């Protein structure tokens, strides 16, 4: 964690206070307002109700799959078992998704942060044009990108490789990441870096020691969004890979079938949907405490 610790305060306003992470007050509305808790409840219900339906559908017995009762009684794990049946390769798909989405996130953050640093903190000509060029790449309809990429990967022999999925995911995630990180980095007062540079830090050091930790909530949020976007990518993954060993979870799920022709494997698909969602949520729960709370040096009390 050493590199995440803020540098010693170099001036006393406002840098010092923030950098030392003394306080970050989060309370804006009256703490005791009951409306506040009503608001929380409404939001949680709004977000979780459809997901709850997914969980319920996953836990129903296949024989009463289409019941509209609000509880899955009697519950069964048959749908989950069917999703993980060895002939599907779903577990392997989850691992592949993790590899692809994980690599995409790490690479996107590394090159996205460097690019955003340049765009937010350096003074050079053509900045507006560069930002415009970057965002322009996420204006093209995704479905029109598939065939040229497939052609390219076929020509250089990249079919059935991880990079064939990672690099397109990277390019879908980069524009959002760069723009967001740029916005977050720009929010930091410029005095911070200048003060650090007066203290003898190089611009890069100043950035790493001061700006990055302060922008941590933004960086972390960007990482989550990139990871999820890569985790959910489908049209490239289904086109550039045809060996089961490399297929991602989404592609595997699209191949689920019922026992008979036309029979739609709704329960298994819902079970798979729950399985691909829950790890993300747990990971975020675990990481956010460590990373966000760690970086902001115990801001929330």
């Amino acid at each position, binding site marked *: 964690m050493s590199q995440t610790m803020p540098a010693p305060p170099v001036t006393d306003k406002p840098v010092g206070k923030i950098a030392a992470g003394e306080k970050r007050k989060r309370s804006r509305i009256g703490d005791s307002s009951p409306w506040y808790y009503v608001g929380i409840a409404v939001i949680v219900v709004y977000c979780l109700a459809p997901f709850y339906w997914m969980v319920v559908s996953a836990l129903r017995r*296949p*024989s*009463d*799959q*289409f019941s509209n009762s609000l509880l899955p009684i009697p519950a069964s794990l048959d749908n989950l078992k069917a999703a993980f049946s060895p*002939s599907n390769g779903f577990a392997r798909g989850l691992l592949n998704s993790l590899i692809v989405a994980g690599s995409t996130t790490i690479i996107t953050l590394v090159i996205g942060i460097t690019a955003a640093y340049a765009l937010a903190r350096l003074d*050079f*000509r*053509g900045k507006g044009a*560069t930002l415009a*060029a970057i965002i322009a790449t996420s204006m093209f309809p995704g479905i029109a990108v*598939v*065939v040229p990429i*497939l*052609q*390219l990967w*076929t*020509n*250089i022999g990249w*079919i059935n490789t991880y990079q064939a999925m990672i690099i397109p995911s990277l390019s879908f995630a980069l524009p959002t990441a760069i723009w967001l990180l740029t916005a977050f980095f720009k929010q930091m007062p410029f005095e911070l870096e200048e003060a650090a540079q007066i203290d003898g830090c190089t611009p890069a050091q100043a950035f790493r020691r001061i700006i990055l930790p302060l922008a941590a909530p933004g960086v972390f949020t960007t990482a989550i969004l990139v990871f999820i976007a890569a985790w959910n990518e489908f049209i490239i993954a*289904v*086109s550039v890979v*045809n*060996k*089961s060993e490399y297929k991602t979870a989404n*592609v595997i799920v*699209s*191949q*689920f*079938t*019922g*026992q*008979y*022709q*036309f*029979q*739609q*494997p709704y329960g298994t698909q819902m079970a798979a949907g729950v399985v691909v969602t829950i790890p993300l949520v747990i990971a975020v729960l675990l990481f956010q405490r460590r990373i966000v709370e760690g970086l902001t040096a115990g801001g929330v009390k």
Partner: protein
Amino acid sequence: MRGRRASAVSVIAGALGVVLTLGACGGGSKSGSTPAAGTFDAKGPITLATGKDTSGYLQSALDKWNSAHASEQVRLIELPESADQQRQQMIQNAQTKSDAYTILNVDVVWTAEFAANGWIEQLPADKFPLDKILKGPASTGQYFNKLYAAPYLTDGGMLYYRKDLLDAAGISSPPASWDDLAADCKKVQASNPGVGCYAGQFEKYEGLTVNFSEAVDSAGGKVVDDSGKPVVNSPEAKKGLDFLVNGFKTGVIPKDAITYKEEEGRRAFQDGKLIFHRQWPYQYKLASATDGSSKVTGKFAVAALPGLSGAGKSSLGGHNLAISKFAKNKGSALAFIQFLTSEPEEKLHLQKTSEAPVYSELYDDPELIKQFPYLPILKASVNDAVARPRVVKYGDATTAIQEDAYAALTGQKTTDDALKDMQDKLTSIIGK
């Protein structure tokens, strides 16, 4: 200042250069490796691209082949479950001239398009026992009187009906015509008010083309004539479409049925909400399930589709196997297709998956009939079935049919206008 801008531009130009060169090189190297068409000598490992193996039968067939052909191993490439996505993957591979897929499991309605675009190889007809194969399915692999795809599986619509309800209402045999069907419903509904009369697949997708064509054919009309010319704006076709349109108007067809694909309709039938249901054979096993998922187990039977006056005609479904033009080892591919479409393998396939074979004899096999009581009805259905328009631009044709048929069913257009518009569109698509 100039210098700096130039550097940024040169980075971009450089990258673009790399990209364009990559594309150009690859394109060049590819064209040389495409083998000459129509030769089936090369042997070696191949792949079979298909929707997923529902029962594990396919893998067992592959294992059987692979253990006997060490140097000609077949690898299964599982495509997404949805037919649209399967077709999309196959087209993408054809566009990029990729050799990833050797054998393609194609829907019968894709054959003309794939053959005309030169994506699949013409097959030697003498290598397949076409005389033992039902006529309808055998013709689906043909394009311009040449065989492009080996008949593999077939499918025909049947009328599922609630035998228990008909019996209770004193009706001894399933309806032979649409009028009978409506009359039977009245009798049954008199004592069972909540139950709906008839449904098929009326959602705006390929199933609507199937159901619309069936209605037209069952009323003595045609969508396209034998020479391939659209003739859908006829009095007979109007009677067919009117059956569906009036069905929705008078409540013979429940309102919900406009959202039915195969599975929604199956659920309604299994829940006991329908007296009559036009459906494929796959529903038989599922509706007979004894685990509580079906409320009609033992209470239903199947019959031939009814028509305007007498028996109706089904649309022909099914799948064929074709060889990609861009593949390697077409000799092994041909041999493997012969193996997979052989009569013994098709029999095993039917037993494991209940998907219908193309061999006439299998439908008369008493052992199989015991397991699948509907086989004689299905055979009659497939025998009389009408193929959907065999046109190169099938995608455009089916879109046009769905567009106007749906507009008629939902009351947006009169049947006259719908058929007239459909005829115009089909004429411009098919071009005759």
